[in-house]
């Protein structure tokens, strides 16, 4: 949208815009860079001080990206599970042939991915992956803060795997329906999933007490954690919906905070601003707002509507820059603070 009457935000004024032509499918922090995965199989590293570096990694879209000890790991539609260093070295960890590698995750030197119904885990000691089997195709995987538990979502709920005496033991957190993305709360006490229906589901791990967070007008494609409470911040509505996870019962029976209310369309991506009680919300029309986690929040415009859905928002590891990516491949890379 090259509408002259649109007033540019400070971020658009001071930042750089890149038109890559390929949808942004994911991004992650690595060393002092933000690594972005694209729909044409390429990876680009964005640094605060240097020009971006492009690495052609997969053929077909990159489906998932995570950062490990010594590079980003990616899963692609070409069936390859790769590790890519910040100086552009590409190493193939495994090749699944015609099967997509849908999800990847890492903890220190342990890397894992899912393809079809299985999770494959590589640790230092051995070259052969450990395989964890599930009853249906895996929607999402997550590793907890200590690297001792892996949550795997699929149709019918979440399987929680615990490493006990070098063996992975499973326990099932059941809820009818198809579960997508999964995550642990920062304190490791809750599991949260997005669902095929317009809602999220959560379990308290201790007693498997579970509850739904519903009322969304569209599918919830993104969630994150923000603030000290903490709040579970979610996309899927015209505002960023933030559920309080403090206290014994979490959000059960409580109202969520609704912030970032200036977007006219549903939010498609949310990200927290580390160290601050603030949240970025990206919308379906490309608009991005920064909003405070409070009852009466102030909103700051980061990006005007671009016409394409916001598919990623990332903050550089030194908190100096913000990256916004959309489904048509536009990247905004901008200093976060006044110079």
């Amino acid at each position: 949208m090259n509408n002259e009457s649109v007033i540019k935000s400070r971020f658009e004024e001071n930042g750089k815009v890149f038109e890559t032509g390929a949808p942004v499918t994911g991004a992650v922090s690595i060393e002092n860079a933000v690594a972005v995965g694209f729909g044409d199989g390429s990876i680009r590293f964005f640094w605060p001080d240097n020009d971006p570096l492009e690495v052609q990694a997969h053929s077909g879209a990159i489906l998932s990206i995570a950062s490990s000890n010594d590079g980003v790991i990616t899963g692609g539609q070409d069936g390859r599970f790769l590790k890519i260093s910040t100086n552009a070295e590409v190493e193939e960890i495994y090749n699944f042939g015609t099967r997509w590698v849908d999800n990847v995750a890492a903890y220190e030197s342990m890397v894992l991915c899912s393809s079809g119904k299985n999770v494959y885990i590589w640790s230092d000691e051995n070259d052969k992956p450990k395989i964890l089997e599930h009853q249906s195709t895996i929607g999402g995987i997550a590793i907890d803060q200590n690297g001792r538990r892996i949550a795997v979502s699929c149709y019918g709920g979440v399987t929680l795997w615990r490493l006990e005496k070098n063996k992975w033991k499973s326990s099932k957190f059941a809820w009818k329906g198809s579960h997508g993305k999964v995550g642990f709360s920062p304190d490791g006490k809750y599991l949260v999933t997005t669902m095929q229906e317009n809602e999220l589901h959560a379990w308290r791990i201790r007693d498997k007490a579970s509850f739904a967070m519903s009322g969304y007008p569209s599918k919830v494609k993104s969630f994150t954690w923000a603030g000290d409470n903490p709040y579970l911040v979610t996309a899927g509505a015209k505002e960023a919906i933030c559920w309080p996870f403090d206290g014994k019962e979490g959000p059960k029976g409580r109202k969520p905070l609704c912030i970032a209310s200036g977007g006219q369309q549903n939010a498609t991506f949310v990200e927290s601003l580390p160290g601050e009680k603030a949240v970025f919300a990206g919308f379906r029309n490309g608009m991005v707002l920064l909003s405070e986690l409070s009852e009466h929040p102030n909103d700051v415009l980061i990006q005007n509507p671009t016409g394409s859905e916001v598919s990623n928002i990332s903050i550089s590891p030194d908190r100096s820059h913000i990256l916004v990516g959309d489904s048509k491949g536009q990247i905004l890379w901008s200093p976060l603070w006044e110079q």
Partner: protein
Amino acid sequence: MENRSSQVPVTVLTGFLGAGKTTLLNRILTEQHGRRYAVIVNEFGEQGIDNDLVVDADEEVFEMNNGCICCTVRGDLIRILGGLMKRADQLDAIIVETTGLADPAPVAQTFFVDQDVADRTKLDAIVTVADAVHLSTQLGEHHEAEEQIAFADVVLLNKIDLVDQSQITGVKDRIRKINPYTKIIETNRCAAPLEEILGLNAFSLDRVLEVEPDFLDSDHDHEHDDDVTSFSFVSDTPLDLEKFEKWFGNLLQTHGQNILRSKGILDFKNEKDRYVFQGVHMLMDASPMGPWPEKSIRNSRVVFIGRKLETMNLKEGFESCKSD
């Protein structure tokens, strides 16, 4: 809503093992030069598909928690279609090959239920490849064979060189009894013109207006209670909107499981627009489609394809919707 032209058409190929799905698929892929297809195959798929973008699917059927008891969708399609839409290269079309025993309803329902799928792709048509030699036996033995005919926008009646004319007539009558709306193309080695198979837009509401069913005389004798049949009704008296909504809503609520497909063009009293609907089980798409064209006969026509239709008092129900 995304721009309609940005929706990638999806053709679903059904049919029993050995009917000729792979032959048809390879014809589409080799004869349509310069067009880019993604082909979604199932794990039991026959080998030898000549395309650089082949994706394995699991035919995972999911129940939706939306209070609709027959609402099942194909979870793998939601995942794969979503993934394909993340690619940088533009696809001209997507072809989904199903196993011989697959029920087409969850495939069709996926396009009604999942908003992301509906925004970026559209169900173009369900094409069923049938073996002229074996179809009659298969219809008697497998529910899935009947469903594949019931859902088909096109039936490719293949291998006709192996049967005589009376057998062809017999099997075509059987197909029409299940689904009077379907187009039957007689072929050998699936050698049908591809423009009669691809780009049909069969699930758009405008197409309901264009396709005239082959109305059969209402002889609904059949051997089993669970045979798939079709009923169609015409009314020259305008219908009452409120009465119709009440009857039809209640009908889908109580009998949606047994109504596989429904379509209709409706003339409501005091409404200048024609109304068009089409449904799969309990899910329905309906819309006014502009004023009746001049010189056209204003009447209401509805067709139901399903099981146990004779228990639903369809004729009485439809008659009761007539305006006073």
